[in-house]
């Protein structure tokens, strides 16, 4: 969908929720009422969701159907900007939001230059089968487990009074399997029933976890845990003072890079255009021992410099902010040639960490020191044992990245604070596991 008919023209109806949000057709007309010297920007989202939650029995099968219409409005004039949001996407509601944005106009902020006028959105569509097909493929793993299937489709509309008028539709399907304290998540624009079965198998009952300590031993972060540790590294690159971030990039072995790709449709964040209507592209955060994007380049778009196309709105109740979208820790092809995964037989003793409690992360931005609860299976004499252990992983991000020996990206992303590619990472040294 997309293309611009110009100022005041008809807006294409958002596909998944057409008819439910009639008033948004008037967005361009409302934006066109900008006063002399004023730029009005209207950013709307229309989301339809369906969710099925089941714990085994038919009576426990809970369904949810949701429909959400919301628009964020910015008014720029005289070097200042104002912001307001509303769920009343009727013409009257949008006019209220425009008036409220004008009334709150205070911060010094020039209007962003116009972005693209055309969007090719097909790659962001969801091609997963109906949720019912997942249910048919799934056998309840037991009363102590829960499966949540969720489908979401969102139409995004970006209209400005200077004629910018783009929109696209994105969709995805996700599955979460919880068994006791363990939870496994899969997210995709093309989720298959086999993915759900794999999740159920991953949460299969295991031995009770025992507290454990492992100092100066290798740790293999597997899949979602690899994504979580990648998110810790990215957080340090974005939030720590520039000298700390530069040091972290310098200690990352030269065969590895950290990317941020808002244009990758396989990732849960991002899109064909960013929250200010600019085309997205792949960015390098760190490579070759150098920090490519400085920490000061993240934040409100008006306050930072650097390339456009990376402004996002976690929700429409706040102005856009420049923040990582879909990040990935990747290796040069030559670094992992012939190796599809980490070889445990090369590790005498260590931890195969398959769970990091990212929500309990303790992180000191000033030093990039971190501690995070973890659990996994012990590696002994080169073999992955069935013994599950838990503790707190501890170290600094600089030491962590310096110890990275191997990186094996998987095809999936994990939605954390942003989208993070699942990855298997072998860290030879630099993190300690303390019993806790």
């Amino acid at each position, binding site marked *: 969908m997309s293309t611009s008919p110009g100022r005041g023209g008809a807006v294409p109806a958002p596909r998944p929720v057409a*008819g*439910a*949000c009639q*008033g948004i057709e008037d967005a361009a007309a409302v934006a066109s009422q900008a006063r002399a010297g004023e730029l009005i920007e209207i950013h709307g989202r229309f989301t339809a969701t369906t969710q099925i939650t089941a714990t085994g029995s038919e*009576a426990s*099968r*809970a*369904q949810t*159907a*949701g*429909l*959400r219409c*919301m628009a964020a409005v910015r008014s720029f004039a005289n070097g200042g900007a*104002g*912001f*307001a*949001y*509303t*769920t*009343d996407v*009727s013409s009257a*509601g949008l006019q*209220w939001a*425009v*008036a*409220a944005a004008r*009334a*709150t106009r*205070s*911060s*010094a902020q020039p209007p962003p230059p116009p972005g693209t006028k055309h969007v090719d959105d097909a790659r962001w569509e969801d091609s997963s089968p109906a949720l019912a097909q997942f249910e048919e493929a799934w056998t309840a793993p037991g009363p*102590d487990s*829960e499966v949540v299937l969720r489908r979401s489709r969102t139409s995004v509309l970006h209209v400005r009074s200077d004629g910018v008028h783009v929109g696209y539709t994105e969709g995805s399907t996700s599955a979460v399997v919880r068994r*006791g*304290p363990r939870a496994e998540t899969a997210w995709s624009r093309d989720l298959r029933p086999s993915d759900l079965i794999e999740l159920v198998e991953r949460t299969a009952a295991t031995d009770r*976890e025992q507290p454990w300590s492992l100092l100066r031993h290798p740790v293999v972060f597997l899949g979602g845990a690899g994504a979580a540790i990648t998110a810790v590294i990215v957080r340090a690159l974005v939030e720590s003072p520039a000298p700390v971030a530069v040091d972290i990039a310098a200690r990352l072995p030269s065969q590895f890079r950290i990317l941020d790709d808002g244009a990758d449709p396989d990732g849960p964040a991002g899109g064909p255009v960013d929250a200010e209507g600019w085309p997205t592209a792949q960015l390098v955060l760190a490579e070759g021992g150098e920090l490519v994007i400085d920490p000061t380049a993240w*934040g*409100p778009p008006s306050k930072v410099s650097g390339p456009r196309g990376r402004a996002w709105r976690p929700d429409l*109740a706040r*102005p856009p902010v420049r923040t990582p979208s879909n990040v990935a820790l990747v290796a040069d092809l030559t670094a992992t040639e012939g190796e599809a995964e980490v070889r445990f037989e090369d590790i005498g003793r260590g931890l195969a960490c398959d769970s990091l*409690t990212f*929500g*309990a*992360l*303790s*992180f*000191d931005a*000033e*030093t990039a*020191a*971190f*501690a*995070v*609860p973890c659990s996994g299976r012990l590696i002994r004499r080169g073999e992955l044992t069935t013994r599950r252990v*838990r503790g*707190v992983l*501890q170290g600094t991000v600089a030491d962590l990245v310096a110890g990275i020996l191997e990186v094996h990206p998987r095809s999936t992303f994990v939605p954390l604070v942003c989208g993070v590619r699942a990855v298997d990472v072998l860290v030879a040294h630099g993190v300690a596991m*303390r*019993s*806790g």
Partner: protein
Amino acid sequence: MRADARAAAGSDAVAQVCRTAALVAAAVDSAVEPAHWNRFDTFVESRTRTVHTLDSVTGTETITGEETGAHTRLIAPNGAPLSIAVTGPTHHLVDMSLNQLRQIDGSGHHADGSPSPHSAVRRRQPGREPGADLLGVYLTELGRAVDRVRDVVSRVITFSELHRAVACEHSGDSAGDRQVRRRLHLELRTARGGVGEDGVVLAAGDELADPSVIGPFLDRALRRARMAEVRAAAPEGKLSVVFAEATAGVVMHELVGHLLEADIIASGGTALSDRLGHRVCPLPVTVVDDPTLAERWGSFVVDDEGRPALPTPLIEDGQVCGILSDRTRGSLAGAAYVGHNARRATHEHLPLPRMSNLVMSAGTDRLEDVISDLDSAIYCDGLTRGQVDPAAGRFTLSMTSGRIIRSGHLAESLGPAILTGDVLDVLGAIRAVGDDVDDMQTVCGKAGQQVLVEMSAPSVLISAIDVVRA
């Protein structure tokens, strides 16, 4: 705005969401076949939010907005639940609900004939509310006061105001409530890199002009910033920890409150639900969740299922004595526990048993005496990001701010650390409860839902917690 005018505006807002709830409920009732579904309840919420931010580096910013939506719960004859959650223009909520219902139900039942909600819609006029300019003056003055402090190099002042009107229709009965939350927050940084913050709940914006409110608020943030200028690495191992007043409330929130929430208990039991009626603390500790306290961060008159708010004792005299519950989880643990604790982050979410204002009663110990009796320990006055594994009874708390206790005295400030342990072990290791009480306001997240909560607690000494530094 004068108080009586505010009250009138509030009652208007409640009346409007009550009317909308009745309209959505009637439309859904007429649209569903009882053979397929029966409506359980309909919840409508309207919220407006304004946030003023004065950042000494990036400038002043104000954001404002409004959000309205409806959530209808239905039940199939076999007991399977269905939820219809819609967010959009008030006058479209009926149509949007029926549209979603048709997609799920597949009956093709047409919505023609449902009552028109258009007459119930009243639009707020755009523009600033009376008094908003005065608020700006107060905030600017506060900013200048902070900037006059000699070694403060940057500061962010945030004043947020939330107006939430809710109504719930259940079995022909409806109840509404209006909640207003105002909070002032200050974060400042000193020339030596210390960061300090403090927050205070305000009943009205004009309290910003009250020196008895603003003075101590500013002093607390400054004191914390100066203490944080030099921080040593936290010691590790099993240590005694004194939790400062209010901070101990976070401990009780994670270790007691969450483990006595009925939905978590229903998902497999918790370390505390198995101890109902039994003593878990050696001292006569009392912990009550009380949404009826006036003008607190977590207060409400009716819960998000339309039931009147009531205090819920959780621990009394050291014994576990109650659980937090709602309409659908009213009877658990072999006894009837009345559910008045249903809360939703927004109308889009299903209600869950949640805490509101968790209050731990004061003890008799003086904090100075407690500290002076300790040879080596940690004094923790900043906690964030608590997590608990209910069934296993394991918890982790992230300490953001603290000091070492050495030979009975508070010594240097400490860097961040993770505090972890077993819930029953730690409750059993409470050795002293202070005679001082303070409160703190925060946001509690559970199952993807963030709700405003308050914790009120005295300082507490726990004799053994595992500490791992970050």
